[in-house]
């Protein structure tokens, strides 16, 4: 039974308790930042900030609207990062999330390059390339695994307004759908349920007050074409090319050696 988080952007007050809880539970240090004239802080995700609330200012009919979204791994069913991870460090958890075995990470960064939501980050060293990726793992880090113990993720636990809920994905899909309908009938005509269908179904779903692009979310996220061309087309061809090349050379060797020996037989000496 797949589990999921439902985030309600309308109920969210951007208190950022989830950010703090995430850091607290996952033992991630705070980052020193400078005041940029916004409450949004830190400015971006990083290898030690796996979750943050994004602030968006929109002007509608001369009125300012302040929108909040949760920025963290969306735990896709068709996860590009899992597809391109060469070591199997990123994998599907039995409950549907994209879990991560940090020990296996080679630091190649392909997950970051291909993530449609630009989530995974690393502490990469530019010159040596030594790196470890990091991202939200749905509180399943070994030793800090809340899910296995039957708890909700730390962000959900701490949320004071009920904007974050955790539960069976199927149930949350129903809850989210009803909530969006209610919003559409009550002053949010563009209310949108995000994550129900996207990328095979996300395990973090959003109830949005407006269409996703207003919040800076990709409207129809896809596994990048390059990932498919690379993993599903070129790599199988590579196996075939490599295999056939070695096989062909082996066959050639056997036939050519025969032929050469025959030519060197006494009586037919050519050299």
């Amino acid at each position, binding site marked *: 039974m797949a589990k999921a988080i439902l985030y309600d952007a309308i109920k969210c007050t951007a208190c950022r308790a989830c950010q703090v809880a995430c850091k607290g539970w996952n033992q991630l240090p705070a980052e020193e930042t400078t005041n940029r004239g916004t409450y949004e802080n830190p400015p971006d995700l990083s290898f030690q900030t796996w979750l943050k609330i994004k602030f968006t200012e929109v002007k509608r009919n001369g009125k300012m609207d302040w929108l909040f979204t949760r920025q963290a791994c969306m735990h896709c069913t068709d996860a590009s990062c899992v597809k391109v991870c*060469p*070591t*199997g460090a990123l994998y599907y958890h039995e409950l549907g999330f994209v879990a991560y075995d940090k*020990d*296996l*990470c*080679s*630091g*190649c*960064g*392909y997950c970051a*390059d*291909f993530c449609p939501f*630009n989530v995974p980050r690393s502490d*990469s060293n*530019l010159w*040596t*390339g*030594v*790196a*470890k990726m990091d991202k939200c793992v749905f509180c399943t880090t070994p030793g800090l695994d809340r899910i296995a113990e039957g708890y909700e993720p730390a962000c959900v636990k701490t949320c004071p307004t009920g904007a974050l809920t955790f539960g069976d994905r199927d149930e949350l899909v129903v809850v989210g759908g009803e909530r969006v309908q209610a919003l559409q009938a009550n002053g949010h005509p563009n209310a949108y349920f995000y994550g129900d269908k996207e990328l095979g179904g996300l395990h973090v779903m959003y109830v949005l007050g407006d269409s996703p692009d207003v919040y800076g979310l990709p409207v129809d996220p896809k596994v*990048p074409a*390059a*990932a498919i*061309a*690379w993993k599903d087309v*070129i*790599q199988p*061809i*590579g196996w075939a*090319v*490599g295999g056939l*090349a*070695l096989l062909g*050379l082996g066959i*050639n*060797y056997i*036939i*050519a*050696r025969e*032929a*050469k020996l025959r*030519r060197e037989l006494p009586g037919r000496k*050519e050299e």
Partner: protein
Amino acid sequence: MEQEVERYKWIKMEQEVERYRKPTRILHWFNGGAFIILFFTGLILFIPSLGFLAVDSWTRILHRIGAVIIVAGPLIYLLTNWKASWKGLKEAFVWGKDDLEWLKAAPRYYFLCDEEAMPPQEHMNTGQKLWWLMVIVMGVVIGVSGLIMWVFKTTAPAALLQWSIFAHDVAFIALGAMFFVHVFLSVIHPLMRPLRTGAWSSMARGKVSAEYAKAHHRKWYDRVSKGMKESPSADE
């Protein structure tokens, strides 16, 4: 001119012809060594069950050392041997009727060891040219895409990084497969044995016997032995 005279001496005394000068041979072996490092540290990302070898980035450090060698080598060579470089580059791109003949004869030659089948060849035969052309083209592809993945990892647009990885993979497959063909046809194929006769000696010592040159690179041999107007560089 002095080197030209030198070469005649070789032909006369030892019955040998210089085929690759020292800088060319050094470049070849540096690139070959770097290629093997790059090939295997890249291969483990290609084979999921070997992925564990890449853990903790140590193979990336090796990969980058190899990358620096394989990029710096040709660049240094280009700057210090620009005349030979230019000739060598031209060699890869000039194709003619003889090449078609060679391709037609190649199966007879390589499978049936029929050495009479081959039409007379220039300094490089068609097969060597094919590999050389591929090294140049795919080398640029793999070098540029690799540079993007290294230096612009955090700044390049996602799509550029994605297609760079794709291009790197395509070039890896092409070069990787052809690398085995190259090694096979140079030193393993029954016609290339014993080693001292042909390809190996030309890259190891830089010289081949006049007889070998005559048999395998007739047009080049004729040109060189007649002392036609040619640059002193042997690896044209």
